[in-house]
Each structure stands twice: as structure tokens, then as C-alpha cells.
């Protein structure tokens, strides 16, 4: 087979898979820690206090957000690696691998736009009125949060395909797929964030920030780990690499299956 079809480029594939960790670690550090978003400034903060927050943290927010705008693109490359693993399961005619890649790619858009708005807010702080700062701060939150459905399509597509994996030991374990469904379910109440400045459904509140976001984060981390492993497993399945240890107990090595 490998003589008639072009060779699979496993090293590029692995490289793309590793952009998953680059995304989730980079975002955690730059957006969360450096730009002081753990927890984010509350929606109920007065315009004056918001202005002061941006004034005090101007450099941190500028550095954090500009790095995030660059690193956010790794969600797309990670999505491409996931999509390729999915293609191995659903075949070349499968549609869900496309949905996954589009979903991951478009998820980058609200991320880059929102971070750009927060960045500009810090950049222009001396020229902006407090009301303007508040408006821009809300604007970015509305965009980044309410785009959840495009990410949901990505997650649903991945979950469905990985659950259909017929391998005895699935490339991505079933619990990750089901956690994907949990993530999607936790996204829907995010639609409530425009209506509340306090309580569990405000964008900094318990549901949106401490349930929906961490649930998604857990999905990204676990999916990244299993995609990195999956590419190596596929390489062995294809016979392009030798297993380090015999992975199948008492049977033929995977490479010969």
C-alpha cells in the first residue's frame, strides 16, 4: 500500500499534535497568570475600577494578550492533527473530520478578536474614558464566550468519531469523548452571560468561569495527550515504526495487525 500512496509525514503530524500543549500551557500562563485573569475582573466592576485595572496592569495585559493572539493559532494546528486521526477512523469520505478542523480553526477567531480588544484597551488606556474601557472589556467577553457553539461542533464531531473507533483499545478513550459531551452541555448556559453582572451566570461567575471553562480545558488537555499518543500508535500500526515494547499482551505486536 505504501508504495502506491504518498508517505504519511509522521513527524509533521506529531509536531502539530504537540501544538495542543503549547496552546493550553501558553494560554494558562499568558492569559491566566500574567494578564491576571484568574479570576477575571468581575462584570459588576465599576467603569472607574476597570479603567484603573487596565492602567495598573497595562504592560502585563499588553504582553499577555499579544502573546495569546499568536499562541491562539495553535488551537487550529492542534485541530488539524486531531482531524487527521479522525480521518483514520471514519475514512476519506468522512465529514466529521472536516467539521472538527473547521471548528478548531474558527474557534481561533473569537480568541484572536477578544485578545486584540483587551490588548487595545490596555494600549490606549490613557486616551480611553472609563465607560469606553468597560464597553471594550464586555465586548471581548461577549465575543469569546458566545462563540461556544462553533467549538461545540468541533468537540461533538471528535467525540462521535472516536466513539466509533473499532480498535480494541480506542485511539482516544471513550471517557474523553463523553467528557466532550459534558463540555458541550456545560457551554449552553454560557448564553446567559449578557443578562447578568453578578451571580453564577455572569461571565466571571461560578458557572461560566469555574465550570464551563475548566471543563473545556480538561477536554483540551486530555485530547492533546491522547492525540500525541494516537499518532505514535498509528505510526506503529502502519509499520512505519517499531513498538518500543510489545504493546499487546500475549499476542502479535500491533505492527503486524
Amino acid at each position, binding site marked *: 500500500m505504501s508504495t502506491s500512496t504518498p508517505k504519511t509525514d509522521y513527524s509533521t503530524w506529531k509536531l502539530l499534535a504537540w501544538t495542543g500543549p503549547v496552546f493550553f500551557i501558553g494560554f494558562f500562563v499568558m492569559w491566566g497568570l500574567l494578564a491576571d485573569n484568574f479570576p477575571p475582573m468581575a462584570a459588576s466592576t465599576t467603569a472607574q475600577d476597570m479603567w484603573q485595572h487596565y492602567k495598573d496592569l497595562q504592560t502585563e495585559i499588553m504582553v499577555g494578550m499579544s502573546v495569546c493572539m499568536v499562541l491562539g493559532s495553535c488551537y487550529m494546528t492542534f485541530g488539524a492533527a486531531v482531524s487527521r486521526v479522525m480521518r483514520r477512523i471514519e475514512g476519506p469520505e468522512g465529514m466529521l473530520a472536516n467539521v472538527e478542523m473547521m471548528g478548531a480553526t474558527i474557534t481561533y477567531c473569537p480568541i484572536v478578536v477578544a485578545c486584540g480588544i483587551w490588548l487595545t484597551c490596555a494600549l490606549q488606556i490613557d486616551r480611553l474614558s472609563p465607560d469606553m474601557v468597560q464597553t471594550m472589556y464586555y465586548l471581548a467577553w461577549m465575543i469569546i464566550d458566545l462563540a461556544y457553539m462553533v467549538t461545540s461542533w468541533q468537540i461533538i464531531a471528535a467525540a462521535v468519531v472516536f466513539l466509533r473507533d473499532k480498535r480494541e483499545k480506542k485511539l482516544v478513550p471513550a*471517557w474523553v469523548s*463523553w*467528557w466532550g*459531551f459534558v463540555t458541550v452541555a456545560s457551554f*449552553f448556559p454560557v448564553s446567559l452571560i449578557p*443578562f447578568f453582572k453578578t*451571580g*453564577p451566570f455572569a461571565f466571571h461567575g*461560578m458557572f461560566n468561569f469555574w465550570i464551563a471553562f475548566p471543563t473545556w480545558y480538561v477536554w483540551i488537555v486530555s485530547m492533546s495527550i491522547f492525540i500525541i499518543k494516537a499518532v505514535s500508535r498509528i505510526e506503529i500500526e502502519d509499520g512505519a515504526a517499531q513498538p518500543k515494547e510489545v504493546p499487546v499482551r500475549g499476542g502479535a505486536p500491533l505492527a503486524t495487525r
Partner: protein
Amino acid sequence: MVAVRSGSGETRRLPGVEGVWVFVAADMVFFALLFVSFMLGRQEATAVFEASRQTLDVNFGGINTLILLTSSWCVVLAVEAVKRNALDQVPRLIAGAFLLGVAFMVSKALEYGGKIKAGISMLSNDFYMYYFTLTGIHLLHVFAGNILLIVLWNKARARQFSADRCVVLECGATYWHMVDLLWIVLFPLLYLLR
């Protein structure tokens, strides 16, 4: 499917697939956190919560509980019928569960309608925020469950279930019972806690 032998010799088995239980457990934890959040909110404004609670119609809440319990029971009977290979009864039982699910949604629509007509929305105060959002999120679960029941009904009519092929039905049943179970707590929390 997980099956292990228990000490007494009977087979211990989790219905459906493990993933559904992961989903159900996570969903129940989310709801539990919202229950706690409601109780803490109530602590801040007990008088407002109590005054607002008294405007709710207990009859709606109680009847909705009876509806969901009965719907759940229909699903239990459907699963049992499949395991006895009494396949003729299965579509009827699932249809019954579905119609009761629809009845729940209709009753909820009437209840919401009355509140909105009275000028009350989720923005009126913190109690109504919890009332509308918690029952609304639960209603989304009911809606999803109803779609699931239609799928199961179609499969049952096509005779796709049997005593040794009932994992899909069991998954659906587990989800639907969770929707019932959450309402069993939500109802007293919002309507009866005084």
C-alpha cells in the same frame, strides 16, 4: 458494559456504557453546585427569596414531578420488557414516556407564560434568576431527552432491541432517569423550601 462478579455470586453490572455514567455524574455535579449557589444566594436575601417563592404555583411543580416520575417508570418498564423479550410492549411504553415528557414541557410553557404575563422575568430579582435559569437548564435536558425518546421509539419499532441488545436503550434510560432525579431535588428547592 462492565460486569464483575460480586461476592454473593450474582453479576454486578452497570447498565449501558460507562461513558453515559461519566456524563450523568458530571451533569449532576454541575447541578449540585447550582443548588449550593442558590442556597447561598438565598442566605443573602432570604426575605426576597421567600416572598418570590410564594408567587410560584406549587401545583405546577407537584404535577410536573408526578409526570416525570411516571415517564421514568414507563422507561423502566420498557427496559424490563426488552429483557423479557416482550418486544411488542416496548414501543408503546417509550411512546408513553415521550408523551409525558411533552406534557412536562407544555406545563412548563404554561407556567412560564403566566409568570411573563405577570411581568416577571429572570431579571426581576435573584430568586427569579435562579428559578428561570435552573428550570430552564433542566427544561433543555427534558427537551434533549424527548428527542432521545423519539430515537429510541423508532429503534424499538424497528425491533432493534432485544434481551442481549439493549445497551442503547439502557443509556437513554439512564439519562432520562437523571432528568427525573434532578427535578426531584429542584422542585422542593425552588417551590417548597420556606
